[in-house]
């Protein structure tokens, strides 16, 4: 491949590629700004309280799924027990609100405490659950989930099966949802940024290495246990904060709604639909599924039909889109672009072997691009 005729071509190609990458980054930046702006003005334009209520829940799910993903998606350890941290966050905020007799906007200040409490609880849970490998991990998280739900039912201070309610906010009903909306927005942006920062860091690479081959990662010097536990705690913190906000929004916490097995399943489904372990995947999954779920819930007053619908949807995603939207689409785009590039070049055998050579050099170039694409956008 070191033949001289090729010499000029790769340099040109790499320059072209650099400018393409710059253009793509600019486009991505503009797109992000537009999306954020749209989300920011949404409640000012759409004033129907039902719509804004859907939007608040959707943004909460964006935050929760992004939080879940930065542990489960990156490390490959699927947790079906994150509702524990959601519930701990919700109960922490609820109990403190009740204890300090807070009302009004002050309650929002308790959300960080909910997050901290979730982090505190996640340490012992992680210490036990992360001793085992993947299959068992899923099951242990489910078991821990049931322990917590039962404790919420059994302890007196959690209000048992009556739960705890918030004091009523005397805000204007038309803009009632807005404070929640912006709080959820902040959480969602923070969670996604956190996921993005971790993804690009050394820590994130260690997590991905664990996902690919844990024994080899350890052989290469990754302190797998510590890395996994750290990610687990960070992830629990995010979900705990969402739980706290959720309590203030819904106004009531009950053992079966704070520790809800369907929450775990919804979160996992959204992450899988969007693209497990990607940055944009959880956001897309939550943006598609949560409004859909709310809509179905509204259409069928019988909750069981909604549940059957969720299950069917899950099966469809697993069977037909197992890798999720983001990886599938980005791969499709890359292959299209590669085909388009190939068409732009002279067809093979159109001239002397010297002309055919750049073609041969072009193929690896396309494939390196594929790999950078997948390492920034998605991981398989």
């Amino acid at each position, binding site marked *: 491949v070191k033949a001289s005729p090729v010499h000029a071509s790769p340099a040109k190609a790499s320059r072209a590629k650099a400018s393409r990458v710059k253009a793509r980054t600019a486009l991505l930046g503009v797109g992000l700004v537009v999306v954020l702006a749209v989300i920011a003005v949404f409640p000012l334009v759409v004033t129907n309280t039902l719509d804004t209520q859907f939007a608040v829940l959707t943004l909460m799910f964006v935050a929760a799924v992004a939080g879940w993903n930065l542990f489960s998606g990156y490390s490959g350890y699927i947790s079906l027990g994150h509702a524990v941290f959601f519930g701990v966050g919700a109960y922490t905020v609820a109990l403190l609100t009740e204890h300090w007799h807070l009302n009004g906007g002050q309650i929002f200040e308790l959300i960080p405490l909910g997050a901290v409490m979730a982090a505190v609880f996640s340490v012992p849970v992680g210490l*036990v659950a992360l*001793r*085992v490998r993947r299959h068992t991990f899923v099951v242990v998280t489910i078991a821990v989930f049931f*322990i917590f739900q039962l404790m919420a039912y059994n302890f007196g201070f959690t209000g048992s099966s009556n739960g705890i309610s918030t004091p009523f906010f005397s805000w204007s009903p038309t803009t009632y949802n807005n404070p929640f909306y912006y709080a959820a927005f902040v959480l969602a942006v923070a969670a996604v940024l956190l996921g993005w920062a971790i993804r690009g860091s050394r820590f994130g690479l260690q997590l991905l290495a664990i996902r690919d081959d844990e*024994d080899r990662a350890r052989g290469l010097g990754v302190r797998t246990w510590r890395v996994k536990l750290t990610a687990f705690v960070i992830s629990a913190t995010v979900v705990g904060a969402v739980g706290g906000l959720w309590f203030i929004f819904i106004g009531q916490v009950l053992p079966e709604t704070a520790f809800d097995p369907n929450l775990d399943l919804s979160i996992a489904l959204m992450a*899988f639909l969007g693209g497990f372990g990607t940055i944009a995947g959880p956001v897309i999954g939550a943006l598609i599924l949560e409004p859909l779920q709310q809509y179905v819930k509204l259409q069928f007053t019988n909750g069981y039909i909604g549940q059957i619908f969720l299950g069917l949807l899950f099966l469809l995603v*697993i069977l037909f889109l197992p890798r999720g939207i983001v990886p599938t689409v980005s791969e499709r785009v890359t292959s299209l672009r590669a085909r388009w590039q190939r068409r732009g070049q002279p067809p093979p055998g159109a001239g002397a072997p010297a002309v055919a050579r750049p073609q041969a050099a072009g193929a690896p170039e396309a494939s390196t691009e594929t790999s950078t694409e997948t390492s920034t956008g998605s991981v398989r």
Partner: protein
Amino acid sequence: MGRGLYEAITDGILGGGVYALMAVGLTLIFGVLDIINIAQGILVVLAAYLSYVLSVHLHLDLFLGLLITSPAMFIIGITIYWAFIRPLRGRERTSMSLLASYAVAIIIEGSLYLIFGSNVVNLHAWYVTSAVKVFGFYLPYIYLFGFALAVALVAALYLTLYRTQFGRSVRATMQDRTAARLIGIDVNRVAAITFGIGVAVTAAGGMVFGATGGGFNPNTGYDLISRLLAIIILGGLGSIGGAMIAAIFMITLEGVVDWFWSPSWSVVVFYAALVLVLAFRPSGLLGRKAARAQ
């Protein structure tokens, strides 16, 4: 002390037999297919409802009804395997199959709610209501019959696994899927039949559970699956003997805590025992040491 404790222990051992049967099905599926069938709990409930329908509408004896419900559950198991588990490919296969079976579980749960509602249902027969006196307390016959049935079925499973050609191919597949394929075992067929058998045992399990427990409704599936998962992990995933021992141990422990302390805490103790065991022995009581993680 005394009578209450005896009663708790007897209940635990006899009830544990049924859990052992259901857990063996679950751990067998894990051993061969490397997947955890989250739907096992709700399938037990489904089987119990099938028995209920047969006994209420066709006035069929509960034990006779098993001749219909067992093949039905076997077919349901094979269908689930062919439709949702077999098509899964790729690296996340095991995690995906777990989620797929979870999805199947919530679909079945939702359907059962639609059909039967959330009322708690009990199975009835003469041996459920009349009792025999043991150690000074009354024990309904169904506990004894159910335990006998569970022991017979576990023994039959054991014999099938260790004394037949099919059992040999199942064990070979459990040990090394690739090598099993190389020596000419139709691994897909073995997997499908194993899944079917693993689900078919829920017919007997569901019937006995429905007749001995405090009744059931579609929500009972969660309770069952969480206990079964705890049992098979405690016993060591894929270990049939471990599942049997763990089932008896856990259910007896629960019964004793129930009597000694309070029913609302016995379940917490149950899971706490699991967490404690895992903290010291991550591979369970009789589990093989975990091979390379994939």
